[in-house]
């Protein structure tokens, strides 16, 4: 158990930006809602706060998975796997750290909501449709909500289309180590295409990183818009091992007690 806590602390030390940004964003949101509480409708305030809570949950899942993915990519997972602790403890500590990152601003939000609504009680303001799906409320919250609801489907569709394009230009795509070794022809080809300077720079960087064992597919910049929902749908990185698989591998494939 002590090892588990030490690992948790170690993981949290590696996420200082998230630890600071989450509460800061929650505090900013609560400040905004407190200042506007007389002009905003109560269910809109509630909707905003609930949306933030949902986003924080998503952030925790995404963060936990991406931390594990990053460990495998950078090789630092070997340092963890050679520690005298079980794989379950390692994976559990990572997820616990990610949950803590999400939990701190979530608690702040809940406490803030209580502070705003305390005189009347929260239940009396609970809307029948919290995000105004019926069109009662327009604005950024609905957009963000729709982004997360429909984003994965759009991303899947986009990836199918993109996959067809990639199939046509297979020679451009250094997905496999064998193709990644062809840096020269790939780079020359990309540089001949009528692409903008920034796209060329990205392509050049990816060609270089493909040599170092990180395989990236060649994608347009617009794909960035779909990265977050795509990663939620498991569609964003076609050429890399999936984060849940890596978490499972961390937890179950490292020998915990003995193999013989």
């Amino acid at each position: 158990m002590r090892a588990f806590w030490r690992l948790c602390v170690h993981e949290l030390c590696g996420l200082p930006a998230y630890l600071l940004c989450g509460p800061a964003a929650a505090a900013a949101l609560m400040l905004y809602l407190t200042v506007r509480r007389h002009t905003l409708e109560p269910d809109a305030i509630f909707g905003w706060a609930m949306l933030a809570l949902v986003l924080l949950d998503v952030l925790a899942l995404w963060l936990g998975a991406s931390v594990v993915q990053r460990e495998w990519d950078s090789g630092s997972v070997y340092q963890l796997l050679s520690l005298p602790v079980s794989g379950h403890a390692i994976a559990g500590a990572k997820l616990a750290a990610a949950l803590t990152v999400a939990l701190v601003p979530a608690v702040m939000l809940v406490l803030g909501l209580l502070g705003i609504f305390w005189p009347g009680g929260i239940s009396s303001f609970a809307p029948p449709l919290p995000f105004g799906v019926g069109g009662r409320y327009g604005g950024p919250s609905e957009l963000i909500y729709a982004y997360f609801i429909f984003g994965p489907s759009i991303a899947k569709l986009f990836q199918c289309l993109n996959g067809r394009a990639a199939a046509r230009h297979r020679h451009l795509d250094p997905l496999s180590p064998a193709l990644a070794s062809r840096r020269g022809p790939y780079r020359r080809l990309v540089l001949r295409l009528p692409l903008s300077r920034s796209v060329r720079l990205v392509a050049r960087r990816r060609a270089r990183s493909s040599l170092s064992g990180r395989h990236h597919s060649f994608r347009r910049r617009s794909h960035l818009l779909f990265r977050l929902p795509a990663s939620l749908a498991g569609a964003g990185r076609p050429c890399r091992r999936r984060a849940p698989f890596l978490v499972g591998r961390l937890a179950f494939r490292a020998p915990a007690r003995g193999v013989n």
Partner: protein
Amino acid sequence: METVVEVRGLAKRFGRVWALREVNLAIPRGAICGLLGVNGAGKSTLLRILAGVQRPTCGEVRVAGLPPGRLSKARVAFAPEIDHFYRWMDVGDALEFSASFFGDFDRVRAIELLQLMQLRPASPIDGLSRGLRARLKLVLVLARDADLILLDEPFSGIDPISRDRIMEGLLHGYRASRTTVLLATHLVGEAEALFDRVVFLHNGRVVLDEEAEALRAGSGRSIDEIFREVLA
């Protein structure tokens, strides 16, 4: 003589490729053993299995009498070939991280080794060169009082002068100690003075496993020359 590493019928398969096949080894306590072979021979895989980082496909492995796992990891110090540091740490953090998990970590020796390797505790790992990170890897491993030290290409990226100094340190520090060192390297000529024993791996199989001195005396040649002849 007490055996620290015992391997019987070990095999490891990655997909369709057999990285190790029918490996049998017995390494006595206190020996400095060179694990030699060309690229893809299975050296790193064998070290990772002994370190408990990877599972074997079949076969039996015992490290200090224990199967590879949580208990054996506490008695094994492993330095993989790749950079496995957290980039947000500094040198002192890396030492503290190791010290907090391994009871046999000697902080005094770690400070001495840092001075020997010309590293400062306040230096951020992200700012270290490849050679300095290789030195730090060695510090973290050699500061432990482990039963078995596994070094995978420990000298890659380190300049020849520092390399000689480290090898000299290894020679004096571990020649007569109870710690067993298993060292995989391509620098056979430079490291051969260290070896008490050598194991040649080729295509995942052990092709030679002998005392270094007996091998030299028997053939009248250096280990480097024998290595080139056997694995050519």
